[in-house]
Each structure stands twice: as C-alpha cells, then as structure tokens.
C-alpha cells in the first residue's frame, strides 16, 4: 500500500467524531432545507419556465447557485481550517514529521481529503436536489416540477463545479496548512467569499477569480464552463504543487 493511501486512511480515522465530518452532509443539507421551505411552502410560485425539463434545470440551477456562490467557499474555508487544525491544535506535526514517511505525504493527504469532502458534499447535493424537487412537487405543484429530473445534466455540472473549485481548494488548503492560526484561514476565506460574490456576477471577471469559478458552471448557460474547468484544474494542480513544496520545507512547531 502506498504511503499516500495509508495517510488517507489515517486521515479518515482522524475525522471520526469531528465537526468536519458532520459538515459533509450538513452543509448541503442546509441548502436543501432552505429550498424546501422556500419553494415547498411558497404561496405564489416564482416566474419560471413552463417546459418541465427547463423547470427542473431552473430549480437545480437555483439550488447550486446558492451552494456555489455562498456555501461552498465557506465550506472549503472551514473544512480546510478544521483539517489542518487537527494537526496544528495539538502540535501533531512534531510527531507526524518525525515519522519515517516523506513530509509531503502528510500535506498531500490533507489536500486530497479536502477535495474528497468537497466532492462528497457537492455530489450529495446533486443526488438530493431532485429528491427535494420531488417533495416540493408534492407540496407545491405550482412550481411546475413534473416529469423526471435531468440527472445526467445535473451530475455532470456538479462534477464540473468540483473541478472548477480546484484552485480554491488548493489555495485554502495551503493557507490553512501554512499558517497555524485558524483566524488567518477564515479571514482569507471570508474575504475571498465576499469578493467572489461581487466579482462572480461580472461577466468579464467572474471566471478569473478562484472563489467565483465554481459558480460559473451554472451561470449564463455555462458560457465559461470550459474555461473554469481548465483553469480550475491547471491552477489547482499548480497551487497544490506549490503548497506541497512550501509546507514540506517548513519547520513546524
């Protein structure tokens, strides 16, 4: 078994009974609940497409825009800080880095775990969105959610948004691992999230900013889809590579 696989299995154990593990279902759960309350019990249906497939896409888009604009950047910020905090908080580095395991393995495992958690939450949202849509259909038929949901479209877009979040995950992962203070990671994440909310609405700049790249997958009919996919992947790999180099050469307390 490779060192990385073993480190990932160790990470999974470390996550037992942690807030970070609970946040994987809770974060998309909040978005689903909000949508359920808003659309399931709304007396006046919002103006939307009359075509059932378009109505489904409109519904899924609304759900994912909320997720990718606001919740995902916050989720990545907190998860990165919590994952790194497991080691910073109890001075674990002096134990881990004194093991005969390549230093970068520990940091790579952290970044991989962050990506896995983001992927799990996003895919959970993708799977649960049509289910919530079905509940809304029963509670409030006026929303126009009839027929079968666009599963392939939804899952492919959800996967694309995960790739587009590559740069953001690598960046927040690096900040959280590099600085021991929880405040630094949360400050960077919050500043990025607020800026991303404003910049993300710009057609000209939105697809350039790591915090607003993922949402571009669903905005403006995905006009920047390929750009954010490539940029998220390339920048993500580049930043992750830099993060591994930087963290591995540091002397931790």
């Amino acid at each position, binding site marked *: 078994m490779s060192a990385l696989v073993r480190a990932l299995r160790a990470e999974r154990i470390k996550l037992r009974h942690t807030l970070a593990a609970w946040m994987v279902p809770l974060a998309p759960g909040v978005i689903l609940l909000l949508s359920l309350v808003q659309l399931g019990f709304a007396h006046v249906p919002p103006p939307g497409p009359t075509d059932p497939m378009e109505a489904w896409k409109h519904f899924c888009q609304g759900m994912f825009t909320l997720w990718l604009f606001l919740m995902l950047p916050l989720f990545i910020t907190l998860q990165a800080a919590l994952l790194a905090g*497991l080691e910073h908080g109890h001075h674990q580095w002096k134990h881990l*880095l*004194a*093991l*005969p395991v390549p230093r970068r393995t520990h940091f790579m495992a952290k970044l991989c775990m962050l990506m896995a958690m983001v992927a799990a939450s996003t895919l959970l949202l993708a799977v649960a969105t049509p289910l919530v849509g079905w509940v809304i259909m029963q509670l409030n038929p006026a929303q126009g959610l009839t027929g079968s949901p666009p599963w392939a479209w939804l899952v492919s877009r959800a996967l694309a948004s995960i790739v587009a979040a590559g740069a953001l995950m690598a960046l927040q992962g690096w900040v959280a691992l590099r600085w021991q203070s929880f405040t630094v990671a949360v400050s960077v994440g919050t500043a990025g999230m607020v800026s991303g909310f404003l910049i993300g609405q710009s057609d000209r700049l939105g697809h350039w900013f790591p915090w607003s790249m993922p949402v571009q997958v669903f905005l403006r009919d995905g006009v920047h889809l390929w750009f954010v996919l490539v940029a998220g992947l390339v920048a993500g790999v580049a930043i992750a590579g830099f993060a591994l180099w930087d963290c591995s050469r540091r002397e931790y307390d």
Partner: protein
Amino acid sequence: MLAIQTRGLTRRFDGRHGVTDLALEVPAGSVYGFLGPNGAGKTTTIRLLLALLREEAGEIRLFGEPLSWTRRAPLSEVGSMVETPSLYPHLSGRDNLEVTRLLLDGETASIDEALALVGLTADAERRVREYSLGMRQRLGIALALMRRPRLLVLDEPTNGLDPAGIVELRALLLRLAGERGITIFLSSHLLSEVEQIASHVGVLHQGQLLFQGTQESLRRRHGDPLAIRCGDARAVCDSLAHLGEQPQLLDEGTVSVPAPRRADHEINRCLIERGHAIHAFGRRPHSLETLFFELTGQEART
C-alpha cells in the same frame, strides 16, 4: 556502538541560543539524561535529532547512519515524544495508535503490544480526552514504541506529572531499557529523576555541551566533598582554615570541605589533636543537582 553521534552540530536562531558545535555520543543501550537549564538548547537538539529542524552545520548519525533534513531513513529506528504527547483527544487510545500504525505500515498486533507495554489495554477504547495526564504520557510513549524502535528520544517526559505518575514513568523506562535493550535519550528538568534512571548524562548550557559521560565519571571528575559532623562547627571551620583548607559551614553541626588539600586521615588527626568533638567524618557523594549547578555556574533559586 553509538546510538547517537553528532559532530559539529550547529543550529542558531535570531536573538536566542540554539546549539553550537555539539558533539554528542550516546552509547547504544544506555539511558542518557540530557540536562540543561531552560533555553540551553535541549529541545533544539532533540528536534535536530528527529529532523524536525534543519542543521546549519555538522552531522548526525543514528546507529552509524547519517541523518539530515533531507535524509530521514534512520528515523525508522527512532521513537519520539517531544514535550507533550501528540494525541488526538477526540479519538480513543487505540485509534490514536491506529493512525500511527497506518502511517508506518505496521502490523495490527503492534497496537496491542504497545498498549500492554504501557499498561493501557483496559483503557484502549476510551477517548483520550478522558485520560489523566499520566495516561496521556504513557500513550505518548506507546506511540513512540509503535515502530519497535532501538532508540527512544523523549523531551521532558515527566512534565506535568504528579509524583505517582513520575514513579510509573520511571519504572516503564527502566523496563524498556532493561528488558528490551532500547537506548533512551531523555531531557529533563528533574535532576533527581535523571540521577535515578540515567547511566550517562550530558550537560548543555547556552548551546554548548559542558560534560558528557557516565554519572560516575562526572562524580570522579569533581571529587566528593568531605563532610564533617561535629560539636562546634564554627570552631572546626576556623581550624580547617588555619590548616589552609577552604571549609564551608553547612549548619551549626556540619562542615563541608569541597576539595581538601590534605589527606582525609591527616585532617581528621589534626582536628582531634585540636580537641574538636568529631561525630562523623567522611566523603559525601555529590548529588547530580550539585554537579549540574557547578558545571553550569548557576545557583539554585531558593
């Protein structure tokens, strides 16, 4: 065979001492007490020995194998605990060991073995946050034992322990050294503890090694003081001074002569001839504490 050997090992920090030109020699199978006042460079040395810090100059060898920031293979022979044990309090004792076992690609049996060795088998499933300080310390040592090391490096392992915990830890370390032949390199502030457990000592002060060797050699080097219990200690002091000695009045009934110039029997004879009542006369071995303060030029804060 040396378990640890350093030559010219140097690491400095801005504005504070690190270590300079350190030449440690820790024989395999020994219990080596690494002593020094706060800020002497003990933790820096330990971090260098575990490749947690980059060496500025010099070399480190563990069991003859060179170790450096970039060459860490010899660490597979080393178990360590630096300052407080590195534990995940939300996990059980067993899960904490499982994390390290996975990273080391060790056998599952090594967990039960380590738990048994430190006497934590019954508490293995409890979360670490429920453990007492002594139990945490023992679990920290269990973590260090997971890779079945030939060398155990412990930085202040008795920190925060109550007397019972200290006795428990001492017994454990002596067992590891005696039964398993593990070389133990430990730093401690508790000189009396080191005195009871260590075969060898190294004294570090302001980043430099002032002494290293067996406890006996340290005592031999300094010579045991002559202790005289008598009826009138002040009068005995005067007599000794008259004989050209440099006596110290310890209390109203005891005089010490740290480095007598004359033979003991000659001093004894002179004192008796001068009519002093001598109740006890003999060499009193130095405590490690006294030797430590002599070496470092410090005085105990009373």
